[in-house]
């Protein structure tokens, strides 16, 4: 079976006045129908730019896909026109943004903002539109959905707002949802609720998800597969359980070591020393080399190409035999 989304060697650069920022530099991964992929990495490693590349909503002017393919349902999105992309956005691929405080428009009611999706993609009006909106709000379990139609975002709690964002994303029954740190802005208790809700909806609708996060706890809870991103490239990707049990890349190992453990002594938090590199001035060799505890001579000279460590487990590291 061919994958729902197949990203191959995607390169998205940002051409700024002071030089080229290689935000996404040769990224490949795939998501099957109904599957959840976790894209993990530190802030500024190119996660968000990867998401925006899939939807082709890049910062203008300056952001550009320079190479690679984004195959969605077998068709290359990179080649699509803006008009064709508009029919895909919101209908087949949608996205949940980090903070619904800022991602919902303060000037319009919930009905208006959720309804827009149906008005555009299904050309619905009046009564039928309203029913669809209520249906979408019920899907994300907003209590007393009918009474919330005329509410403005600032009249709702953070958790409810993020559900509305979910209703907007899921309303038109897309086959892929990109969730860009959707729980970061929520309280911890609400976070768990929200994640469970997404899982339920996924079981119900069979929507595939791409979960962008820096929280490995969320990954463990939500994802089937994980891709670890560092400085514009994916350094390791594997089945979720496999990655947690047998991490191979020193960066992944470092990330996992950073997770506080309940049984360990609590006096010290572990961190990876050093800073991620500037995406406008990357080192010649492996991008992680300057921070890597096991850095070798070759690491400083040449970037290691991707190699298969075991079944479906790919690593870009010289430590792993080809």
């Amino acid at each position, binding site marked *: 079976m061919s994958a729902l989304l197949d990203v191959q060697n995607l390169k998205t650069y940002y051409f700024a006045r002071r030089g080229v920022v290689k935000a996404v530099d040769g990224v490949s991964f795939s998501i099957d129908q109904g599957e959840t992929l976790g894209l993990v990495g530190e802030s500024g490693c190119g996660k968000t730019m990867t998401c925006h590349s899939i939807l082709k909503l890049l910062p203008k002017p300056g952001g550009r896909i320079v190479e690679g393919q984004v195959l969605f349902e077998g068709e290359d999105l990179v080649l699509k026109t803006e008009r064709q992309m508009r029919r895909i956005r*919101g209908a087949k691929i949608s996205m949940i943004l980090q903070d619904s405080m800022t991602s919902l428009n303060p000037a319009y009611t919930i009905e208006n903002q959720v309804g827009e999706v149906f008005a555009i993609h299904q050309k619905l009006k009046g009564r039928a539109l309203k029913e669809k909106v209520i249906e979408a709000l019920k899907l994300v379990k907003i209590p007393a959905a009918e009474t919330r139609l005329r509410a403005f975002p600032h009249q709702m709690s953070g958790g409810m707002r993020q559900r509305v964002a979910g209703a907007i994303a899921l309303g038109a029954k897309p086959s892929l949802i990109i969730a860009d740190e959707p729980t970061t802005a929520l309280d911890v208790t609400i976070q768990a609720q929200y994640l469970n809700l997404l899982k339920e909806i996924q079981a119900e609708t069979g929507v595939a998800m791409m979960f962008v996060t820096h929280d490995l706890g969320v990954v463990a809870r939500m994802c089937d597969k994980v891709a670890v991103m560092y400085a514009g490239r994916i350094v390791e990707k594997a089945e979720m359980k496999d990655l947690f049990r047998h991490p191979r890349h020193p960066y992944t190992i470092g990330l996992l070591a950073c997770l506080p453990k309940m049984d360990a002594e609590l006096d010290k938090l572990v961190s990876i020393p050093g800073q991620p590199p500037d995406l406008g001035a990357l080192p010649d060799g492996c991008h992680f080399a300057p921070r890597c505890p096991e850095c070798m001579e070759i690491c400083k000279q040449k970037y290691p190409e991707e190699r298969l460590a075991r079944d479906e487990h790919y690593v870009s590291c010289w430590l792993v035999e080809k």
Partner: protein
Amino acid sequence: MRRFILSRILQAILVMLAVSVIVFFLGRLSGDPTDILLPHDASEESHERLRDHLGLDEPLHVQYWIFLTDTLQGDFGESVKSQRPVMELVKEKWPATLELTGAAIFISLLIALPVGVYSAVRRGGFFDFLARLLAVFGQSIPSFWLGIMLIYIFAVPQFGWAIFPTHGRGEDGLWDHIHHLILPAFTMGWYLSAGIMRLTRSSMLEVLDSDYVKLARIKGVPEYKVIWKHGFKNAALPVLTYSVMIFALVLGGTVITEMVFAWPGMGRMVVDAVYARDFPVVQTTVLLLSAVFVFANLLVDILYSYLNPKIRIAR
């Protein structure tokens, strides 16, 4: 909230008091009105008598006190020159000024809003460059010069086309009204549009960078709707505020345009009154115009906190 409004009202009263002091004493500095009212060869005795009649023989602080208490009781006095009640004169001129200012604001919004919005959308592009250049011209070309140039080009057959009248306010029906209004309104509107355009642009830039505009694009909303529905409605609030303030400010600033186009409004009346040392007229009109401005400012401050939900939440 109530404390905020009260303190703003108190401030407004203080400002008005200061204005009354300034306009009163500054007027007195310009000289003796009897020099102008009486013929050159009038005797010192008749000067005396007229001064006595006008109340100018009293000490200044007494004069000010009379002026202040009369004004507060709604008595604005009589014009020294025409002997008519000042309020009557104001009522006569007021509609013309209001009309000119309204038309100027309308024209400036008509120019500034679309230009501001699209220069934000095409940020850094050629259109943006042109628009910003235009804004510099808008703010640096003096109104009197632009007015005279427009008259040359559009109203004098020897230099350009005589398609608009050179001066005055139309009297035969609506079209004549509009016909007379266009050049002076454009002269004023041109200057105003620069400020409104800049504000629209910066406000729009901020909004276009927001997450909800991003989400609108993610939803597949067509670009014109992203800009006008999701962007402009949110960017419009500061622009609206500014335009209301400008409207009040400009009511007092029509002087130059009214002079150039011989527009029979308040601005011209003030200038004529200053030349004639017609103190009651100058004092009343300046006070009124500043009152309108101060009141509009107050209104905007209060409205703003009601209009902006975020401010409401913060309280």
